[in-house]
């Protein structure tokens, strides 16, 4: 059976105790495309992402990945995941060892030379060669972000989900980041990015999910969305910003 969607989410609800973080969320995503998730802070974006990748187990509804149930899929294969950055505390771990975490399932009793060379190649592909022996907290925010991306893609995932990866990056690094996303997409990966960079969203993304707890709008083009929708979501008209941006 050929499956049409790489990710199917139906009626997904997740709570933290009494707090309902996301309610009855449903959407379907196609393979090999680039999607963005937008929405206000506290809107449940991180919760949604954590539920899909397997961090949050306590949810109602259905998540199917390439036609399999979430748990069945993640037992066989990792979903690439780049967490939302919080201040990195000091921890005595080298960059190479952080990347190797992504190959942990494959290691058996210990990491082998092929794991090291895979991790090194991934670091190189992200312009981080020479940084492998640094400690993770000795890097700048942007470099650390790329290490997290390296850890996510080192296992060659079919789906890569990144939670606000461009926060704190200057505009040049942001542009670099989105061209990296395009490379991933061209290699056949499905890429999902949680972001507030609505400007880049319209230029690069194949689909946009707007999440504010219960409210979900799924559009394939930002221009499909009425301006007052963004006004309601963010408190200002994003489309106005977009049109300005495109000039």
């Amino acid at each position: 059976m050929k499956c049409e969607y790489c990710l199917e989410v139906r009626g997904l609800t997740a709570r933290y105790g009494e707090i309902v973080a996301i309610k009855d969320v449903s959407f379907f995503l196609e393979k090999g495309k680039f999607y963005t998730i937008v929405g206000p802070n506290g809107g449940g974006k991180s919760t949604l992402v954590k539920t899909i990748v397997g961090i949050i187990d306590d949810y109602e509804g259905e998540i199917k990945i390439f036609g399999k149930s979430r748990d069945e899929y993640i037992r066989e294969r990792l979903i690439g995941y780049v967490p939302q950055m919080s201040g990195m505390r000091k921890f005595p771990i080298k960059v190479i060892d952080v990347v190797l975490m992504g190959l942990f399932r494959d290691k058996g009793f210990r990491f082998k030379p092929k794991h090291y060379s895979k991790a090194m190649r991934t670091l190189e592909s992200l312009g981080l060669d020479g940084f492998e022996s640094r400690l993770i907290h000795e890097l700048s925010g942007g470099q650390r972000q790329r290490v997290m991306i390296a850890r996510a893609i080192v296992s060659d995932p079919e789906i890569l989900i990144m939670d606000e990866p461009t926060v704190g990056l200057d505009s040049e690094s942001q542009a670099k980041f989105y061209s990296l996303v395009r490379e991933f997409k061209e290699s056949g990966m499905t890429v999902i990015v949680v972001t507030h960079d609505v400007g880049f969203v319209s230029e690069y993304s194949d689909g946009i999910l707007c999440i504010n707890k219960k409210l979900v709008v799924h559009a394939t083009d930002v221009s499909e969305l009425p301006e007052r929708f963004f006004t309601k979501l963010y408190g200002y008209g994003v489309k106005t910003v977009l049109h300005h941006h495109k000039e």
Partner: protein
Amino acid sequence: MMDTGIFAYDFGQIALIGGILGALSTALLGNVVVLRKMTFLGSGIAHLSFVGVGLGLLIGVEPRIVTLVVAITSALALGYLSRKGIHEDIGIGVLFSTSMALGIILVNLSKVDSSRVMAYLFGDILAMNWNDVKVLAILTAIILTFIAVFRDHLVYSTFDEDFSKILGIKISVIYYTFLVLLASSIVLTINMLGIILISAMIVVPAASAMLLSRTYQGMFKLSPLLSTSSVFFGLILSWIYDIPSSAAIVLIQGLAFFFAFLIKIFGK
């Protein structure tokens, strides 16, 4: 030449082997304690264990069995609190001193010889027997295996719990196993070092190793080395100057930390 005469005696050999086994166990688990920033755990378990000592002496059951039960229970409880984000705060400080007071009252009620109580408080490594060493050897073997197999699991779930979950690491099972092993190693080394000094054995070698080595891999190699050599030199020191051996061991560990600190500051 150093005067190593102490090791010519049976009690000296028992102390050396027992001490090294205890040092290995506590130092290896101590790395996890230090990386997780749970340094209150060691002294907490030891203080709460004193209630077990008092209870055992009072009801006439081998104190170490009662202590083991109390220690494991408190390790699981403190570990649970720590995971919920409750760290060294006033409440926990009050709990520790209150349990110590309760222990003293229980011991007093049991009317045992006060030298036995002193051994629990300050330790008496020279009073160990071969049976103690055997039990300690079994526990040390279990802890060495646990660390050899699960070191990365423990480190990953400390560094990034969410990602460990994605990797399928059974975070809770490993964490609570670690706590049970820590409580057991504390109970089995209490009669060597005493309730007051045992937390040093857990925290200090790992803290020194963290200063001296950049990576967690280095910590796991260095801290057992620092810990076991401080037992060796501590015993010799206590023999030469006729001072309490547990205090001598901890003093050497403290000096090692001080030098590690100096190296860290001036070595760059």
